[in-house]
Every structure is written in C-alpha cells, then in structure tokens.
C-alpha cells in the first residue's frame, strides 16, 4: 500500500552506497525536492542511474539543477547515463578519477530498465552493433546474429530505489505526468525495489481518469508531497 512520507523520511530510507534510479531528462522530470534533501543529507557513494548529469544552471536560475547537485557535492561514485555533455563537472570528476561514468545508448538504456521491470531476460537491439559498446561486459551479454542481422543482447537494469516525479499523484499513488516529464520515470517505477514519487500536486482518488493513469499505484511505495 502506498504511504505518504515527508521528504526527510523519504531520504532517511536511502542508505549510503544505494543504487538509485532518478527519472528525468536534463533535469526535466527530476524529483527536485527529494534531490535537494538528498544533497543536504551528507550521504554518498551512490550509484546513480539517470539519463544524464543534468546541468549547472536551471531554468529558474538554480545554480545546479537536479542530479547535478549530487554530482557537484561528490555524492555520486558511479553514474550510469547516456549523455553527460551538458554538465562539465561530470567530465572533471571523471578526469580526477573520483566518478565512474558508464554511457549506454539512450534507447537501450530505457529498454534495459523496462526489461528489468517486466521480467524479460534482456533486450535485443541493433543499436551499438559494430561499436565499442559491444565490449561493455557489464551491460552487454552477447552479440547475436538473428536471421542474418546482428543485435546486442543488453542486460536488464534494476535498482534499490527509483526516485521519480509526477505532476498529479492521487492519494492511492496513481501518477499522471505533465509534458515531457514521464521520460524514464515511467519505466523506472517498474524496476526498483522501492519507488518514491514526488508529487507536484496531490489530488483526490478518481481525479485522474482511469484511462489516463500512466503509472498505476501498485508500482508506487511512497509519496512525497512536493507541492505548495
């Protein structure tokens, strides 16, 4: 059953060294209040699975935006992402040797998380064939030829926690995403042991039409009311 927790309680559940999926794309769809609290917590050694390192400079004048805060604070020891070019701090910490970064093609990244949540053994994609991705042993099970075409069998990805952001979240935990914010949160909510949703707006049960619920409440363990 989904439970309401404060942002402090949510962060208290996350131990040092946790593997954490964070929904969002360049900060858009990051659960910003949970990340703010996590940044203040002093915890670290996280493995973060997130499309990117977000960016310094948010759209509302933030100094560091979304997951960029955790990276800036040196709370992340390992980042699994698809693109980190917009956050120069990622490059600096890679060069220092303080941050390990693994880069995966974005479509494979999304699908590997989906596979982790849907009980599939992997993802057979033509993406990355003939590139150095073939050698990423941690993520690629094998190169397979099927009916004369080559594919990479990418491994499923799961995490201890998924931190996602929903625009409307009803009191049971059903989620509706606004604009382009559903991106990776939708699949991450299926692929982590504990799923914490930051609700921009908590709404009454029934307010989201049954056909328009995008993440059914059974995937959500905790709701943080991030509104107001």
């Amino acid at each position: 059953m989904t439970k309401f927790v404060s942002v402090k309680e949510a962060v208290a559940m996350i131990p040092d060294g946790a593997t954490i999926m964070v929904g969002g794309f360049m900060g858009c769809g990051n659960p910003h209040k949970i990340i703010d609290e996590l940044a203040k917590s002093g915890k670290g050694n996280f493995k973060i699975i997130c499309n990117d390192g977000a960016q310094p400079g948010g759209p509302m004048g933030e100094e560091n935006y979304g997951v960029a805060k955790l990276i800036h604070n040196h709370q992340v020891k390992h980042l699994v992402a698809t693109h980190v070019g917009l956050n120069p701090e990622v490059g600096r910490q890679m060069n220092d040797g303080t941050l390990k970064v693994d880069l995966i093609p974005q479509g494979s990244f999304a699908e590997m998380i989906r596979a982790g949540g849907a009980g599939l053994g992997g993802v057979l994609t033509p993406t990355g064939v003939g590139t150095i991705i073939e050698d990423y042993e941690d993520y690629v099970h094998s190169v397979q030829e099927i009916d004369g075409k080559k594919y990479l069998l990418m491994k499923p990805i799961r995490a201890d926690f998924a931190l996602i952001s929903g625009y409307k979240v009803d009191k049971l935990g059903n989620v509706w995403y606004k604009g382009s914010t559903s991106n990776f949160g939708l699949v991450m909510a299926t692929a982590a042991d504990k799923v914490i949703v930051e609700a921009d707006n908590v709404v009454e049960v029934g307010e989201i039409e049954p056909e328009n619920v995008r993440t059914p409440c059974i995937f959500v363990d905790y709701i943080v009311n991030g509104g107001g």
Partner: protein
Amino acid sequence: MDREQIKSFIIARAAGELKDGDIVNLGIGMPTMIPNFLPEDVRVTIQAENGLLGVIPCNDETRDAVYKVDAGATPVTVSTGGCYFDSCTSFGMIRGGHIDVTMLGALEVDEQGNISNWIIPGKRLPGMGGAMDLVIGAKRVIVTMEHTQKGAPKILKKCRLPLTALKCVDLIITEMGVIEVTENGLMLVEINPEFTVEQVQEATEAVLIISPDLKPMA
C-alpha cells in the same frame, strides 16, 4: 563565407531535403535551426527523442516551461495535435522505423557511410545520447557539418574515432557540396559553385565519385 554564413548555407540546403508531412528528428546544433528555413508549403512534424512529437518553440517563461524540454534541454512545447510520451515509446518509434529523416552533425563520416559523432577518447566524452538509436532507426540519415575541421578532412576513407554506427549515413551536406553514400562509395551530386571539384576532393580524404549529373548547390 564566414562561419555563420557557412552554417546558414548548409542549413538552407538541408531544409530542401525535407518533404511536406515528414516526421523528423533534428540533432542539437545546426539541424535545430532547419525549421526556420522551410518553405511555407512544407510542414514537418518534429520528434524529440525525450518524448515529444510536434515540437514547436515555446515563448512561455513561467514555471510551466520546466515540464517541457527538447533533446537539447531547451524549453519547448508541442503544436495542437502534438503529444508527449515516455522514452521507451519514443525509442520504439525511432528504432522501429517510424521516423522519416534524422539530421545530425558528425565528427567523421566515411565512404561506407559509417559515422563517428559521440566521443573523442581522452578529450571529450559527452556520450551518445540518442544518436546511436537514431542513425540505425530513422529511414533516412542526413549528416550536416562543415566539410573540414580546422582544415583537416572529416570525410574519410575509414572513420578513426569510435563509431556511432555502421553503414547508416545516406547523405552528407557541407558548405562545399552534397554527397550521397552509394554502394560504390561517396558520390558528389551537388557542388557549391564557389569551389572546384578538385578543391572539394582535396578537402576530402575519401575518393569522391563525381556524379555525371553534378549540379550546382543552392
């Protein structure tokens, strides 16, 4: 031509490749500016791989803007009839061949249509983002780039940087000309009248086949 003129020239020519009704994905940089160069009777639908279809510029400077960005993290919105979806749906669309054209920049392209555009080992490691999926998934892959990098050819016999994908590029558009990737190699099909065929070949490592039907690039 200065850099800005070169860019405009390439973009204007690239815009001519789009047909009314096309579903297109435009990479960061030059391709993003293509919609400004389309004639009025060519309306395309722009897909952004982070989950938007029907992308249009956004003039909204309210908090609302934080919910809608394109693949370059620029606040945008969608036109009436556009829609939003998650990343799996988006890349299903891309990998499944539902995008007509993708236009993107490159560090190197070679005569087999291989492309390198995501990493310079030891120097720059931005990541591939959606590029590896886009170039193998879109029906047509068009590279828009300057012909050389500080005078060094970018159109090579064989890519030297780590590849983005094998044999996927259909067309290369630079300020010097338009080059088709054919089974026999790279064919110069249009040339900027400011250059001679010899000058284009000199700026190109790969051997160019000159189209018997070579046209001026405009």
